[in-house]
């Protein structure tokens, strides 16, 4: 240990002599991160991206992004002697002739799916808890950009092998580009280097996929993380948690160990998926051929909603003044995502405009306490899910033996009917949950004890909620909530038996253990206006018991 200590001290001195970094490092190590399971969703996205970089780099060592025609002569017998592009042949090579190449390729693909899935779920968490409110609107916009660039990156990536499935996807992408009025044909020709398919697109997508968009994503993620670091993470309300503090574990060592360990766990799960769950078996599809397609062709999940909107769209097309405007293509594939993602990015300001709430918010909302927002979110999800279902209408038709026309007609109606119903139902559901909270706060918890009153009446006794739980449920205004500011007396309310540390100006101060924090630990505070805890928090005596370590 002493050798280790001396070494560390020596290194620290060396660095500090040159950078004067001691204060910064100490403040960073002592930075407090709040703890909640839902905060790890964004972490999954970050870790998936790192895994994408690692596995992707390995694949580039063997991939040849060329559309030059070659005759396949690798190990995979069924395709021997088939003329195909170099891109497809090298992908076959990675899958069959590079030792461990298939594993890396499949981890890469699974990680891409997980990257976007975790972004979407993280986005939902941020939305439903109102984490995007002032001062975090910028990070919401960055997150939206990350979602869009992630989708583009995924599409560019799975288009690279030049197999039948991805080639069909590119054919559709080319048609979508062409559908844009005035500039579409030009854009398509410049993108593909001529008429589809040309010989340029795979090489160009490769540059986009391994350089352009990854750099963009890396930059956006860096900015995203810096903003979290600087503005500090939001936290669910709870006893001792105010708009002015962060309660949790420090960066070093606990948070670093948990987060670092979690990275490896995410990687382990992806490794298992990559080796045990086949994904994108391009050798079964064959090389791209404009006259071939498989029934039941499906894009990666994150493109599914666009496929669905395209399938649901009626066949409207405008022919006027010697020009064609394909509404049937442009509306569901260009206009719709444009509106969706623009609206998503602008949501914090839309909400501010509706609620007129321009205040700072560091404490999160419980979804039930914002019925309108929660209902809007649920409504949007129902809309998205229906597009996703529409994207798989042929699969559903064949599994359940329903005609694809019936599904399409039903969904065309449902996409206008279901979202409002979901909005209404969710709102009622939220209000009902609020009532349940009122019940709990006003009448306490049923004790199971029946008592007979002298008058002969039977009553069931209830037990009032301990104050911290009342705080958690009812939500006091931050000013009224018992604050636990740094440096304040340790005899604050309702804390667990954890060792308490107040980090002030980067320096931790050890404090006496606090009292139990209670069983609402993972629950959060509702911030309903009418309800207030019936008991306010009087000063408590210190337990005075040192913690057994």
């Amino acid at each position: 240990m002493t050798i280790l200590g001396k070494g560390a001290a020596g290194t620290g001195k060396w660095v500090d002599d040159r950078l004067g970094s001691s204060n910064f490092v100490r403040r960073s190590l002592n930075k407090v991160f709040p703890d909640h399971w839902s905060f790890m969703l964004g972490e999954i996205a970050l870790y998936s991206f790192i895994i994408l970089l690692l596995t992707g780099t390995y694949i580039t060592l063997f991939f040849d992004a060329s559309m030059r025609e070659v005759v396949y002569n690798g190990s995979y017998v069924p395709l021997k002697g088939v003329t195909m592009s170099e891109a497809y042949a090298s992908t076959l090579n990675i899958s069959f002739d590079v030792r461990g190449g298939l594993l890396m390729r499949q981890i890469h693909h699974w990680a891409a799916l997980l990257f976007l899935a975790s972004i979407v779920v993280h986005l939902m968490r941020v939305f439903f808890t109102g984490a995007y409110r002032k001062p975090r609107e910028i990070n919401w916009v960055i997150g939206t950009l990350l979602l869009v660039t992630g989708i583009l990156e995924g599409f560019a990536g799975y288009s690279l092998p030049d197999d039948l499935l991805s080639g069909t996807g590119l054919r559709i992408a080319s048609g979508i580009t062409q559908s844009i009025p005035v500039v579409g044909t030009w854009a398509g020709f410049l993108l593909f280097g001529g008429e589809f398919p040309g010989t340029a697109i795979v090489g160009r997508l490769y540059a986009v996929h391994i350089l352009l968009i990854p750099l963009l994503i890396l930059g956006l993620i860096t900015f995203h993380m810096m903003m979290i670091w600087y503005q500090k993470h939001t936290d669910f309300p709870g006893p001792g948690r105010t708009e002015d503090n962060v309660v949790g574990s420090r960066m070093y060592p606990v948070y670093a160990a948990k987060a670092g360990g979690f990275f490896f766990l995410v990687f382990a799960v992806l490794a298992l998926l990559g080796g045990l769950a086949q994904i994108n078996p391009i050798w079964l599809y064959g090389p791209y051929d404009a006259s071939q397609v498989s029934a039941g062709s499906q894009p990666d999940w994150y493109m599914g909603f666009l496929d669905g909107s395209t399938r649901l769209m009626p066949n409207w097309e405008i022919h006027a003044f010697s020009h064609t405007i394909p509404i049937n293509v442009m509306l569901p594939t260009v206009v719709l995502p444009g509106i969706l993602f623009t609206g998503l990015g602008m949501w914090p300001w839309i909400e501010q405009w509706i609620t007129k709430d321009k205040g700072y918010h560091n404490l999160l909302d419980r979804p039930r306490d914002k019925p309108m927002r929660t209902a809007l979110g649920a409504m949007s999800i129902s809309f998205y899910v229906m597009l996703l279902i529409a994207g798989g209408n042929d699969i559903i038709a064949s599994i359940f033996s329903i005609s694809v026309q019936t599904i399409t007609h039903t969904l065309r109606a449902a996409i206008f009917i279901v979202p409002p119903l979901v909005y209404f139902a969710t709102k009622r559901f939220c209000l009902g949950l609020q009532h349940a909270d009122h019940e709990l706060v006003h009448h306490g918890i049923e004790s199971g004890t029946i008592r007979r009153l002298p008058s002969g009446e039977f009553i069931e006794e209830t037990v009032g909620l301990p104050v911290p739980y009342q705080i958690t449920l009812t939500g006091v205004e931050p000013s009224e909530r018992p604050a636990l500011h740094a440096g304040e007396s340790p005899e604050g309310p309702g804390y667990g038996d954890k060792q308490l540390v107040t980090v002030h100006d980067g320096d931790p101060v050890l404090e006496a253990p606090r009292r139990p924090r209670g069983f609402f630990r993972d629950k959060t505070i509702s911030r309903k206006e009418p309800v207030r805890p019936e008991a306010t928090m009087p000063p408590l005596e210190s337990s005075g018991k040192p913690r057994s370590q």
Partner: protein
Amino acid sequence: MTDTPKDSIRDRLKSPADTGDANAGGDSRGSDVTDASFQQTDSRAELAAHGRDERQHGSASAPVPHAASHLRHEDLSEAAARAAERKVAALFLLSVLGVVGFVVTYFVVPFKYAESPDNRWFTPLLAVFMALALGGIGAGAVKWAKTLMVDEEAVQERHGFASEADERDATGQAIMAGFEQSGLPRRKLLRNTLLLGAGSLALLPLPLLLDLGPYPHKERALRRTAWKKGVRLVRRNGTPIRLGDLALGSLETVYPDVPGGIHMADAPTMLIRMQPDELIPRKGREDWSVEGHIAYSVICTHLGCPVKLYEQQTHHLFCPCHQSTFDAANGAKVVFGPAARSLPQLAISVDADGYFVAQGDFPEPVGPSFWERNSS
């Protein structure tokens, strides 16, 4: 990072006595107590007292919710801590095992396709050992943090973001002062030429981007295909098709008999044979088909997928991408789905040797719509 799962309120309330011995670690904070003993215990006493409203709900004998203790077993007992340490160590060792397994699999298990029937184990084994190697470290670190590292609840103040008003003013003034000092507001010539120069600089990359591909209006590439008068219809393997080769009710994908014809993305065509009286030719196209043989572009007018799923009885052609459906007997008109236009028809005839040939190119652009397209 999740916390350890906790019982629901109701579970805790059901039978407090049952769990009373669970925390026999000598710390009263962890055990369940009745109201009476609550009054004497330290921390939870107040908690409970404040939480109950005697006037409304309580009586002296009512059970009180069990306030959870967060002292870990490992905090209370050195033996438990040592056990936890052993578990973490075992997880770390699992990583070593995983790496060893990974390396052995990598070099020993056959991996090449068809080299050996054992090769099917290569990727799954590699993955399992890789997951052990990664998961051992990961799970170990998390368990270590959760059981043995300091169990603390740290509090840190947030800082406000907005600067003081005079700070903002001073910064704004500094920016404006620099702007003034640069002379830009006064020197109109400087300002205008700078804007002009910077603006034209933005145009610099445009020619580079414009040369990424040929210009569509010069190429007319979207409007024509390799089909010409007299070009034979050939199968994928290059053999021409004679009248009578095609069975009634069948569909054959055909390509123009020109060099590279089978790789052209706009040329694939399907030749369909049905009863001649089932065909309803479009006006002016009565001689475009031969004895019930009719040819349409394979490329969907919606987004360009090959429309080749042919339903013999109804003569419907189905696109697997977006389910546009065309009636092959009736000019390939759209009967369902998002496609707006019929599939372009290829006029065919039979040459002197009895082989199918095209009468010319498609009468309209093949494939998805585009802005400059002018027919409907």
